[in-house]
């Protein structure tokens, strides 16, 4: 077990370094930070001096080495745009993105899994066909259109929910949460749905497919043959056995959720990392972009590690035999 985690962590560092490298090589192409940092009237000489100060004239490899070197020492640098410490900027944005992502994920699980089970058990029902069609349409409309539509319907037309932002938040230590206020929850609903629709559909379809497959398996047939009650049969026996593939995909998709939160956050002016990243692109704020990508890679790696550990929790067969 320890070996397994250690191995994964080493690989993770490698993945993050590679992402940092790729990310860093991309920055040179996004635009020129200097023209974004200075006003119209700043002279070329002044711009050049600033460029020199920021080390932008150094060779690429050198810049990258400095970037990773500093980061390894815990120094994440300062934003070109706001001059604030990047670590702080990202840290204050992480809760928003994570809470959004988690709620979206939970929605997708708590709606997607029952819907998947239902549609698997009644494959020819009218409700099943309706659900399948509806979710299909749901994933076929681009996220940004869905988001705007929700805003206009629930925010403007009905006036039930706020149109943007996080609403009321409460600071818990260094963590700014919207989970503790009614306002916060109200603000969370629409973006979470927007972000969750795709995941929901994916989860539902996956659960459905796995469920239909598992329902054919010998142990389900045997459980049926010995009269295990239907409820237990479906949920305890069948559903549990679909979970390994389901969490694999969900784990992989979590990275996608975080990435796609860029779109959702921009539509809902959700003050998370994605929005920060978009602004950073706009201002060619290289340090922020770099750290953002590494943080994303970190989450991805972390989630996948968790997924691997979850396998072990779910499936006793994967528990490495204790040293005896």
């Amino acid at each position, binding site marked *: 077990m*320890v*070996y397994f985690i*250690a191995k994964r962590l080493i690989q993770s560092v490698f993945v993050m370094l590679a992402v940092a490298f790729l990310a860093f090589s991309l920055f040179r192409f996004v635009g020129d930070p200097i023209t974004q940092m200075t006003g119209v009237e700043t002279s070329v000489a002044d711009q050049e001096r600033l460029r020199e100060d920021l080390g932008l004239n150094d060779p690429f490899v050198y810049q990258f080495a400095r970037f990773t070197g500093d980061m390894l020492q815990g120094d994440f640098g300062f934003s070109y745009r706001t001059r604030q410490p990047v670590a702080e900027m990202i840290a204050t944005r992480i809760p928003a993105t994570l809470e959004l992502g988690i709620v979206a994920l939970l929605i997708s699980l708590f709606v997607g899994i029952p819907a998947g089970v239902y549609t698997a058990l009644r494959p020819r029902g009218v409700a099943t066909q309706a659900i399948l069609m509806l979710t299909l349409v749901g994933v076929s409309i681009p996220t940004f259109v869905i988001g705007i539509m929700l805003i206009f319907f629930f925010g403007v037309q009905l006036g039930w929910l706020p149109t943007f932002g996080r609403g009321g938040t409460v600071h818990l230590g260094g963590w700014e949460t919207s989970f503790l206020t009614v306002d916060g929850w109200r603000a969370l609903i629409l973006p979470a749905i927007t972000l969750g629709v795709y995941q929901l559909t994916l989860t539902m379809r996956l659960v459905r497919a796995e469920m239909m497959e598992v329902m054919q*398996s*010998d*142990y*389900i*047939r*045997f*459980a*049926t*043959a*010995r*009269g*295990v*009650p*239907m409820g*237990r049969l479906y949920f*305890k*026996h069948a559903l*549990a*056995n679909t979970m390994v593939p389901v969490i694999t995909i969900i784990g992989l998709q979590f990275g996608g959720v975080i990435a796609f939160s860029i779109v959702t956050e921009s539509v809902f002016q959700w003050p998370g990392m994605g929005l920060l990243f978009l602004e950073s692109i706009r201002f060619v704020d290289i340090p922020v972009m770099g750290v953002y990508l590494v943080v994303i890679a970190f989450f991805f790696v972390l989630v996948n590690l968790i997924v691997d550990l979850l396998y072990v929790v*779910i*499936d*006793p*067969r994967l528990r*490495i*035999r204790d*040293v005896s």
Partner: protein
Amino acid sequence: MLRVENLTVKFPSRFGDVTAVEDMVMSIDVGEIHGLVGESGAGKSTVGAAIIGLLQKPGYVADGDMMLGDTDLRRLDRFEAHALRGKRISMIFQDPQTSLNPLMRIEDQLIETILAHEDISVADARTRAVDLLDEMGIENAAARMQSYPHQFSGGMRQRVVIALALCTNPELIIADEPTTALDVAVQSQVLDLIRRLADVRKVGFMLITHDIGVIAQIADTVTVMRHGKMIENGPTAQVLGQPKEDYTKQLMAAVPPLDRKIARFKVPDEDGIITPSEARGNAAEAWLMRGIKEDPIGLTLDQVNVAFPGVRTSLWKKPDPYVALRDISFDVKPGTVVGIVGESGSGKSTLAKTLTGLIKPVSGTMTMGGAPLPGGRERARNHPSRQLIQMVFQDPFSSLNSRHRIGAILAEPLWLYGLETDKDARRKLCIDMLSLVGMPPEAIDKYPHQFSGGQRQRIAVARALLARPKVLICDEPTSALDVSIQAQLLNLLKGLQAAFGLTVVFISHNLSVVRQMADDVVVLRNGKIREVGASETVYTTPTADYTKRLLALTPVMPAAWRA
């Protein structure tokens, strides 16, 4: 207790309904073990499924009566039927590996089943479960019950499965090939258990199998099925000992005897297979003969060890390797058949793969016709042994590429080894080779899925022969086939071996089959050779204890029943 009359089961399809079972008649008494035999696809499982009400969709019972005591099984609604399952009828499936929910403890599965049918406390249910497992012969049941299924061996798992089927005291248990996946030792334990339950608990069993030996050993009564119809039924000794119907007679003739070696099997007529006597394959035969320029080649193995990487248990220690073959040494004399027997996991397949160069031994040497035979990747892709050693695999369903036509599959060795450069000539030769193995020429343009298991094995043999091999390795080539087809294939292999002087390594866990084929026998267990010797010597006067036990536990039918 159970009465089935005129049962007809149909599977609707776009070509109209397929009748899987027709006018089936059978009855089982309290405490009776009723054997249901017949070739694959005869409808045995379908009868069982119909009785317990778990027919695969879209199958349905079209006609007939099924009465369990006073209950009309056809009149039950969905919920009544489900309530009855487990309570009065239970079912056991073939594979104990897959019959238990891998994510639940044995204990939970047992208690859950008991509670589903009886209104007792959890503690009582647990006591009952422990008692039951005790009864099944699982030691220290209370503690072992905490385990997950994967922590049990196959035999123990099958016992758990039986306990599960039994825990609510059903009147009838339908056992669908309950021992096919087990090795003989375990099989005999399970069969004993079934016998005891029938005698002591008075549970009725419907025992579905195609192993006549098993039926002979424990069934009180037997029903023979073919093509969905009942052929013959009655007390076991009567039906199998003095069969009235031709089909039953043919079936009995095809069962390989353990106690002696016979020259040829009598086989039932099977549609689509031309018996080799009237086969044309002369051109193919001639082509093969032309390939026999020098004498047959033999193989030797000297102190061969094969190990696989073990499971890592510690962060610092290198995992111990798992030794699958230990110090294997034996000779395969040119032009003879060596049989390799041993229970599941004893290393038979590993040995075959080592010989063919799929696995590299960690130590030891192999030679072919005196020349060294490198192992694993060291054996170059163009090493002569690639052509001279060919293999027929166990599973006819996966050994042929289902996306290639038979023609392409057969022509591949010809093309690969440059044995025949002309495309049309290749095709002609393939057709002829098909005839040689008893297949019609049209087969060449079909796909593997269009053939039955026995036919596919013939194609696999043809593919092997088309490489003009000197050594043929057969890894359980008949274990997926039922007796009659097995008999045909064994006949074919025997004939070819004799005709072309092939050196054959024949692997099987079925001692009876090996006895029919082999000149010499190697008995393997846990990767070690327990006994080597001339086949007849080993079978008649085994020296190793293990060999003796294997021979003793193999279910056989009384010799008198053999026509």
